[in-house]
């Protein structure tokens, strides 16, 4: 068939209305997939980009010594931008006053990504700038300015050099690590560093080299760098630098990916239903054409041509609309997110196009193949079977196709495999259950029930295979929706719990035992609620089971959390947000070694160090040795912003080592000047401010929440599409049946209540199955995809069946009202 003939055929079929629903489903599928995929991709790109603000770069090389000059020239030669940061602690002096400051010397290019917040007065209005101090200039933290009674232009000395106070420094993009915040910040230009003479051989100095560029450049440089790196030098990305934030972003990306994959699956289900109807509607047409002399090949070409053109049209139109949808979504996020969105790429369009092609192939080709086999005798005998009995095999082909699509899209075989398996089980369960229930209900009510109920049951029974397919597909749609809906609430609740209003945003460490009661009095006087005092001893882990840490194979002793002094603590009760994963909490513990002290270890560290219950650990605490034995393993949430400890001991075990206390508390932004009073009263106590980090986290969470809300909305549209396709699939036979019933004298009321009951029953059943399926899916997704705890959600058993029944009844009513208003004769004449 030539292209002109194909176009002519297509235009006829289109005008005749046969292609409408399938075309609409295809177009919507492309629209939604392109929309979701594009939105997710661009948002995720934007968020990753923004998250790099928190590193002030794309990658960071951390080292205790300065690196050879050629490492930086090599990076620049490879197209990367670089900046250098040197950090150390030193005293800052003004007049007679001195304060310990955490000093940073930064190069001209710092920060590579993000901005510095500065002001002309302490705690003043923020102004964003994208470079650090000029030479001869020093920028000080507001608190330091307050402590030293300084104003802009005053002279400040650091080591042997004098500086002019240039700005109050309110925020840095990469102010994150605890060590960074042990003392208030002072920032100078790196070129002034030598003049201070503070940094001498042997000084405790940390170097951060910042790199920015595209992923390929970064990877190429990382590969070049890797063989040069020596012990104590670490190449980090966001995951290492900001684990809490990276975790939030990872979950959000996981969610968006899951949502888009389910969007693909739902669009596929809608196409499947529409393609079935397309096949059914054309069965008689094919019989006529065959009677008029059409050969099978001609039929195949004819319909293949129609599908190809339909699919191409849907791809173009749906793709364009999908880009429009992305813009609408981003516009609706305006005000909520303040990030630069990367331009659209071709990938989401390709995803949409391939979804359409694969869906058409797996869902529309089997009905088309069946069409080509329709017997011409059907023109004389309408009752002839139309070969539509292979629902199971075409369902399996479809599921397989959708599974492959999801795999291709998510590049995650676990995720797509789990979703496919869940869909398959749910589909089979739904179909089996529906067939069983229908025959049961029919037998039970055959003689007794009357009126609408019997009518509904009779209609359900007649279309039992179609109904089984419908319940299965609608249950899948509801399951997807429920899973995503519940997951969204869970994620939001989880994030908000970490960042709830009033969550601690300041830490105090180095509190001496004799300072505890004056500090309590200070907190009481200023009505500050603290999170309780935790004792803390600094110690270093040296041996595991009598072996030196660095001699143990398979342990990365250079990881930041191992090869340094870490905080050890003791407590009578298990901290509120910690959970025992193995072993027991004291006093019910027993240790093998008579002199060993029990210790509880954080789970991730235990895995990293291959620690088991009974492992013997040696610590060096200020030159004294301590031997302990692992008695329990705890999991905890590092993003909780509470004092968390890798190692916890029973009360009484660490008292002999000189220790101090730690606490955390919440301080509103307006009360910040109170910190000056606090530090004046307790000069040896160290204050750590994490309010800036929490604020950054809050911003990210707000963006992510809004984004996943919108994506969920799109999935709702997909689910509605499935229910519409579902109702439409049976519209013709419904019209016909009800026309007959009304001709036979059934009242409109009876027909109407019969219809409503049938749709409600289908929706209710689908809802029940979806509630079960989504609980299983949620457990799996939370546990294995999003790295959260699996929780059983009982409430969905109430909500989802009702939602299903109402949605189905409403959609059914909307589309079938013509059944009631069309004169029966007209319907019978038409069919």
């Amino acid at each position, binding site marked *: 068939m030539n292209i002109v003939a194909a176009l002519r055929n297509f235009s006829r079929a289109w005008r005749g209305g046969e292609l409408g629903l399938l075309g609409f489903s295809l177009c919507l599928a492309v629209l939604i997939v392109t929309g979701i995929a594009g939105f997710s991709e661009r948002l995720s790109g934007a968020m990753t980009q923004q998250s790099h603000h928190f590193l002030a770069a794309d990658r960071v090389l951390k080292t205790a010594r300065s690196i050879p000059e050629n490492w930086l020239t090599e990076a620049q030669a490879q197209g990367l931008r670089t900046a250098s940061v040197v950090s150390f602690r030193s005293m800052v002096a003004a007049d007679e006053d001195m304060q310990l400051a955490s000093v940073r010397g930064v190069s001209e290019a710092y920060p590579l990504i993000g901005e510095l917040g500065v002001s002309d007065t302490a705690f003043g209005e923020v102004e964003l700038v994208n470079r650090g101090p000029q030479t001869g200039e020093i920028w000080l933290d507001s608190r330091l300015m307050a402590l030293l009674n300084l104003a802009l232009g005053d002279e400040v000395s650091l080591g042997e050099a004098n500086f002019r106070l240039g700005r109050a420094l309110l925020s840095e993009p990469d102010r994150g690590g605890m060590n960074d915040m042990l003392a208030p910040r002072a920032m100078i230009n790196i070129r002034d560093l030598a003049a201070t003479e503070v940094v001498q051989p042997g000084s405790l100095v940390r170097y951060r080299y910042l790199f920015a560029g595209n992923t390929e450049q970064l990877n190429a440089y990382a590969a070049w760098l890797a063989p040069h790196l020596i012990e104590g030098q670490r190449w980090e990305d966001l995951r290492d630098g900001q684990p809490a934030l990276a975790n939030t972003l990872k979950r959000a990306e996981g969610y968006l990916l899951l949502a888009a994959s389910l969007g693909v699956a739902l669009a596929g289900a809608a196409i499947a239903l529409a393609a079935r109807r397309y096949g059914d509607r054309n069965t008689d047409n094919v019989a*006529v054409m065959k009677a008029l002399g059409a050969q099978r090949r001609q039929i195949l070409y004819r319909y293949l041509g129609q599908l190809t053109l339909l699919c191409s049209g849907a791809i173009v139109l749906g793709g364009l609309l999908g880009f429009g949808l992305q813009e609408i979504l981003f516009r609706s996020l305006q005000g909520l997110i303040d990030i630069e969105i990367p331009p659209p790429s071709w990938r989401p369009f390709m995803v949409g196009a391939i979804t359409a092609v694969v869906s058409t192939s797996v869902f529309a080709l089997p009905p088309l193949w069946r069409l080509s086999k329709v017997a011409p005798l059907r023109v004389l005998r309408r009752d002839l079977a139309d070969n539509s009995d292979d629902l199971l095999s075409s369902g399996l082909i479809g599921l397989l196709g959708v599974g492959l699509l999801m795999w291709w899209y998510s590049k995650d075989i676990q995720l797509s495999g789990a979703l496919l398996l869940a869909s398959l089980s749910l589909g089979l369960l739904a179909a089996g259950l529906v067939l069983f229930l229908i025959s049961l209900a029919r037998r039970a009510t055959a003689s007794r029930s009357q009126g609408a109920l019997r009518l509904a049951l009779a209609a359900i029974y007649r279309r039992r295979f179609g109904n089984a397919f419908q319940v299965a597909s609608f249950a899948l749609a509801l399951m997807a929706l429920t899973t995503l809906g519940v997951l969204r609430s869970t994620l939001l609740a989880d994030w908000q719990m970490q960042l709830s209003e009033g969550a601690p945003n300041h830490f105090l460490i180095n509190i001496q035992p004799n300072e505890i009661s004056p500090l309590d009095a200070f907190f009481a006087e200023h009505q500050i609620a603290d999170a309780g005092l935790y004792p803390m001893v600094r110690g270093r882990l040296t041996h595991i089971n009598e072996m030196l840490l660095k001699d143990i194979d398979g342990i990365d002793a250079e990881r930041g959390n191992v090869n340094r002094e870490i905080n050890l603590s003791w407590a009578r009760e298990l901290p509120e947000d910690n959970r025992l994963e193995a072993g027991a909490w004291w006093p019910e513990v027993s240790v093998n070694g008579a002199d060993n002290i029990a210790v509880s270890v954080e789970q991730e560290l235990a895995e990293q160090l291959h620690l088991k219950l009974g492992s013997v650990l040696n610590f060096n605490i200020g030159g004294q040795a301590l031997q302990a034995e692992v008695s329990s393993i705890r999991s905890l949430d590092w993003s909780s912003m509470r004092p968390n400890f890798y190692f916890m001991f029973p009360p009484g075990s660490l008292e002999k080592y000189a220790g101090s206390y730690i606490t955390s508390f919440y301080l509103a932004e307006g009360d910040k000047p109170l910190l000056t009073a606090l530090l004046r009263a307790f000069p040896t106590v160290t204050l750590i401010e994490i309010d800036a980090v929490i604020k950054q986290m809050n911003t990210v969470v707000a963006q992510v929440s809004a984004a996943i809300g919108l994506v969920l909305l799109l999935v709702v549209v997909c689910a509605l599409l499935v229910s519409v396709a579902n109702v439409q699939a049976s519209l013709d036979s419904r019209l016909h049946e009800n026309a007959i019933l009304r001709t036979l004298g059934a009242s409109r009321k009876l027909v109407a209540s019969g219809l409503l009951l049938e749709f409600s029953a289908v929706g209710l059943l689908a809802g029940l199955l979806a509630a079960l399926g989504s609980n299983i899916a949620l457990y799996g997704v939370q546990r294995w995809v999003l790295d959260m705890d699996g929780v059983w959600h009982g409430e969905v058993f109430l909500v989802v069946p009702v939602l299903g029944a109402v949605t189905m009844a409403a959609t059914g009513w909307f589309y079938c009202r013509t059944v009631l208003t069309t004169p029966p004769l007209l319907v019978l004449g038409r069919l």
Partner: protein
Amino acid sequence: MIRVQDLCKTVTSGAQELAILRGINLEIKAGESAAIIGVSGAGKSTLLGLLAGLDNASSGAVFLHGQNISVMTEDQRASLRAKHVGFVFQSFQLLPGLTALENVMLPLELSGRSGAAAKAKVFLDKVGLAERGHHYPRQLSGGEQQRVALARAFAVEPDILFADEPTGNLDEHTGQRIIELLFALNSESDTTLVLVTHELPLARRCERQFVMHDGVLSEEFDNDGVAKPIDSALDAL
């Protein structure tokens, strides 16, 4: 033009074999018109389906235009129909998505003939529906739909026209008009006509009448003007 030898059709219903046609023999010459008459369930439509190659016989042979269609594949039979056969159905069987004109063009396009639109217009004009060419079947009355179906059947200038109860879905008056049109077009094109009906007056318009009874076909007489034997034959049914 049409020759049938010992044609049988049996279907199995459960364990039971049911003979629908039992050894039909029949010969219809080119240009003849023949009616197959009988009550519902007598096997008329089954015979028509076999004659037109829409179905396979259990045994026996059907020769159409000199070719044994019983040994042909479905596609070969379709190709033969495209060249030589026209159809008129009881339920019109117009494609609902196509306009009247496109419905008439359909068989012309399927058989790859050129000038389909022009030819279709000529035949729509012949059935008096030149002005309704762009209307869809749902916008046409039953009689108009059957006239479109007639135009479609004759547009391919078939050697043989099969008509299955062409007035079965129409009121008497409309049915009468359709029959007039059918016979007018038939005589104009000198087509061999095989008409299945249960209406006696309609059967009488054909040159030959065959009665189908319980799967057996009998030709009661050559139509030489005397109508009585077929009446008596029908009375006996």
